[in-house]
C-alpha cells in the first residue's frame, strides 16, 4: 500500500457509509430468514456453512486424535466408521459443494454484475431453506448415532447396514436440489442481467467460474438425485437393481454415483479458482494475465469433468478398456488447470504484491493446488494407482484439492469480501498470523500422509498396530491438524471481534476494480443507486490509494487498456 502523499479525488458520488444499508434496513428474525435479498441469503448461507464446517472439523479432530496411537484410543472400530463417514458427508455435501457458490457467490454475483438481485430471488430463498432442511436432517442422523457407509454410500453395504442410510441420502437429495437451484439462478442471472456495457469478455473471472460451476450443478446433480432415490427405493422396497443378491449390479451404482460426484469435485474447485483469479490481480496491483485463457479453461474443465468419472473405479471391477479410456482422459484435465496456474503466476510477475490476509491464503492455495494437481498424476496412471488406490496417498491428494484448495479459497474470499459484507475491518495482524498457521498446519497434516500412503496405510482404517513404523507419520499429521485448528479458531476470532471492535471499512480496502467495490460499504438494499458502468474488471489502475479515505478511491472510469484489449 503506497501513499502518493497527494489527495486523490473520487469520481464516485454516492455516500461511502449510508445511514441505511442492507444490514440495518429491516430488523428481526423473519426479516432475515424470509428475505429475498441475495446479500442476506449469502450471509445466512455463510453462517450455516461455517457451522457445518465447525461440525465437520470436530469430527476431523476426533479422527486425527484417534489415529495418534496405533491401537484404540477413544472409539471402537464401529464408532470410528461413523465418525469418518460423518466427517466426509458433512464436509462434502454441507461445506464444500455449497461453500463458495452459495455463500460468496450469492453475495457477490449480482454486485459484480451491477444488478439489483439474482434473476429468481424466491428460488434463491427456497434453495437456502432446502439447505437448512438438509442440515437439520444431517444433525438428526448424528443424533441417531450416525452412519457407517463412508460418504460414498457404496452398494451393497449401504443396502445392508442397519444405520439410517435413508435419512442421510434424503438429506443429500434435498441438498442436491438446493445446489441445482443456485446453479440455475446463476446461469439465468449471468445471461439475462448483465448491464448492456458488460460483454461476456468484460465479466470478472469469478463469474465465468460460477457459470461453469452452475453448468455442472444443472447437469450432474440430478443424476445424484436419481442415484440416491434408487438407493432409497432399494432399501425400502428391495427392487434389486443395485443388489447382487437379487441379480443387480453394484458397479452400476458406482457409475451413477461418480457421474455426479466427480463433476462435484469441480463444483468445489472451479469457483475456488474464480476467487483466486480475482484476488491475485487485486493484490498484485496488476491486470490479470491471459484473461481469455482463464475464462475458457473454466469452461473446458467443466466439460472435461463429465468424462473422467471412471478414474474413481479403477479397482472396483471396471473393465480394462474403460480403465484405459478414463485414465487417458483424466490426464487431459491437467491442461486447463495448468493454464490457470501459469496465468496466476504470470499475473504476479513484476506486480507490487500486497501480503494482506487474503493474499496469504491465495499464495497457499497456489502452492497447495500445485501439489494437489501433481499428486493426481500418479493416481491417474493405472499401474501406480493399483498400489496407491484407497491408501492415505489418495486421502492426502483429495484433501490437498478439496480442503487445501477449495476451502482456502473460500476462507480467502471471506477475508476479501468481509469488509464489504460487514462494513468493518478485521485485525490484520491476528488474521495474518492465523493464515500462516493454517497454511503451515495444513501442509504438516497432509504432506505426511503421502509417504504414509505409499507405505501402504489404507484409508478408513481404525487400527494399525501391526505397523509401528507408521505411527510417526500419523503423529506428525495429528500435530498439524491441531495447528490448523488453532489457526482457524484464531481467524474466526479476528473476524468475529471485528464486528464490535473493528474500524469502519472504506469503500474499497484492497483496490479491486470489479463493480462490487463501487457500491457503499456495506451495500444498500438494492445494491447501487445508479446502475454502474462496466469497464475492464481488472483495470486496477483506475483505483488509487488515498490516506484520507484509508482505502482506494476510484479516480477515473475503468477502460479497456489497449495492452489487454481482447
Amino acid at each position, binding site marked *: 500500500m503506497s501513499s502518493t502523499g497527494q489527495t486523490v479525488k473520487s469520481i464516485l458520488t454516492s455516500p461511502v457509509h449510508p445511514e441505511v444499508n442492507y444490514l440495518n434496513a429491516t430488523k428481526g428474525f423473519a426479516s432475515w430468514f424470509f428475505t429475498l435479498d441475495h446479500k442476506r441469503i449469502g450471509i445466512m448461507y455463510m453462517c450455516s456453512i461455517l457451522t457445518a464446517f465447525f461440525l465437520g472439523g470436530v469430527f476431523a479432530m476426533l479422527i486425527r486424535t484417534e489415529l495418534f496411537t496405533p491401537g484404540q484410543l477413544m472409539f471402537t472400530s464401529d464408532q470410528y466408521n461413523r465418525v469418518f463417514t460423518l466427517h466426509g458427508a458433512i464436509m462434502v455435501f454441507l461445506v464444500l459443494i455449497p461453500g463458495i457458490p452459495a455463500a460468496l457467490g450469492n453475495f457477490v454475483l449480482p454486485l459484480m454484475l451491477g444488478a439489483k438481485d439474482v434473476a429468481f430471488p424466491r428460488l434463491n430463498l427456497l434453495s437456502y431453506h432446502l439447505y437448512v432442511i438438509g442440515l437439520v436432517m444431517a444433525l438428526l442422523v448424528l443424533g441417531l448415532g450416525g452412519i457407517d457407509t463412508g460418504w460414498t454410500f457404496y452398494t451393497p453395504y449401504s443396502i445392508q447396514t442397519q444405520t439410517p442410510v435413508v435419512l442421510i441420502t434424503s438429506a443429500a437429495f434435498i441438498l442436491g436440489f438446493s445446489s441445482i437451484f443456485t446453479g440455475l439462478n446463476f446461469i439465468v442471472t449471468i*445471461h439475462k442481467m448483465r448491464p448492456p456495457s458488460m460483454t461476456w469478455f468484460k465479466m470478472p473471472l469469478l463469474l465465468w467460474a460460477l457459470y461453469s460451476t452452475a453448468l455442472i450443478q444443472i*447437469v450432474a446433480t440430478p*443424476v445424484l438425485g436419481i442415484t440416491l432415490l434408487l438407493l432409497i427405493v432399494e432399501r425400502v422396497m*428391495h427392487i*434389486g437393481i443395485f*443388489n447382487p*443378491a*437379487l*441379480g443387480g*449390479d453394484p*458397479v*452400476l451404482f458406482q*457409475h*451413477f454415483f461418480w*457421474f455426479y460426484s466427480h463433476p462435484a469435485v469441480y463444483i468445489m474447485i472451479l469457483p475456488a479458482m474464480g476467487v483466486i483469479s480475482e484476488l491475485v490481480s487485486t493484490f498484485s496491483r496488476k491486470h490479470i494475465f491471459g484473461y481469455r485463457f482463464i475464462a475458457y479453461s473454466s469452461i473446458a474443465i467443466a466439460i472435461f469433468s*463429465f*468424462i473422467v*468419472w*471412471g478414474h474413481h473405479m479403477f479397482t472396483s*471391477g*471396471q*473393465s*480394462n*478398456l*474403460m480403465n484405459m*479410456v478414463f485414465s487417458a482422459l483424466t490426464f487431459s484435465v491437467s491442461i486447463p488447470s495448468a493454464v490457470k496456474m501459469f496465468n496466476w503466476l504470470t499475473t504476479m510477475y513484476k506486480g507490487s504484491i500486497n501480503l494482506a490476509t487474503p493474499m496469504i491464503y491465495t499464495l497457499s492455495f497456489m502452492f497447495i493446488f500445485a501439489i494437489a494437481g501433481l499428486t493426481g498424476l500418479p493416481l491417474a496412471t493405472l499401474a501406480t494407482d493399483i498400489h496407491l488406490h484407497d491408501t492415505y496417498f489418495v486421502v492426502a491428494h483429495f484433501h490437498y484439492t478439496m480442503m487445501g484448495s477449495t476451502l482456502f479459497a473460500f476462507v480467502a474470499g471471506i477475508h476479501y469480501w468481509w469488509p464489504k459484507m460487514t462494513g468493518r475491518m478485521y485485525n490484520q495482524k491476528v488474521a495474518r498470523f492465523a493464515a500462516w498457521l493454517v497454511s503451515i498446519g495444513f501442509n504438516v497434516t497432509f504432506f505426511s500422509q503421502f509417504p504414509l500412503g505409499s507405505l501402504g496405510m489404507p484409508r478408513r482404517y481404525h487400527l494399525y498396530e501391526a505397523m509401528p513404523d507408521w505411527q510417526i507419520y500419523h503423529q506428525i499429521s495429528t500435530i498439524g491438524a491441531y495447528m490448523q485448528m488453532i489457526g482457524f479458531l484464531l481467524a474466526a476470532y479476528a473476524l468475529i471481534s471485528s464486528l464490535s471492535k473493528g474500524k469502519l471499512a472504506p469503500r474499497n480496502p484492497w483496490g479491486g476494480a470489479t463493480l462490487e467495490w463501487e457500491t457503499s460499504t456495506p451495500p444498500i438494499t438494492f445494491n447501487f443507486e445508479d446502475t454502474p458502468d462496466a469497464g475492464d474488471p481488472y483495470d486496477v489502475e483506475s483505483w488509487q490509494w488515498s490516506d484520507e479515505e484509508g482505502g482506494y478511491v476510484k479516480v477515473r472510469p475503468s477502460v479497456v487498456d489497449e495492452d489487454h484489449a481482447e
Partner: protein
Amino acid sequence: MSNKSHHHEPGHPTVGHVSPLPQLFMVFGALVALTILTVALSGKLPGASGMMIAMGIATVKALLVALYFMHLRYDRPFNGYIFLAGILFVAVFFGFASLDTATYRRDILPYEADKLGAAGGSEEAMYEEPRKAYQNAHQGKSLHTSEAGEEQPAAESEDAGAAAH
C-alpha cells in the same frame, strides 16, 4: 379466430409466440398417427431393427412435441441449445456407462454360473433367498394373496380393464 400471430393486434402478447390452431391440430394428428404406426409395427420386425424403428418414431414424436407444443422452433435459440446440451450429456452418460458394463460383463458370467450351480441348476432358485425372506417376514403370505384378498374390487376391475392374463 385469427391466427396471424405476428401482427400486433390488441389482445396479442408482447412476448412469446402464439401457435395457430391448425398447426396444433396437425401436430396432434401426426402424433396420433405415429403412435398407431408404432403399435402396429411392434412385433412385426425382426430383431433389433424393431427397436430401432420404435425409437426412431419416438424421437420424431418427441421432436414434434418440443418444436411445436413447446414452441422451441419459435423460441430464443439458446433455449434449444440448452435442451440439446442436456441430450448430449445424457449421451455421454449412457455411452461410457454401457461401454463399461458391456466389457466387464464377461467377468460376471462365471459368478452367475457358479450361483446357478449352487442353486442346483435351477434358475428359479438363484434369487430365491431374498424373496423367501420377504415372504417369511409377511407371515408366509405373499403380497399377491394378501392384496388380492383385501382388494377384491380392484382385481375385478382389472379383469374388466382387459389385462393381458
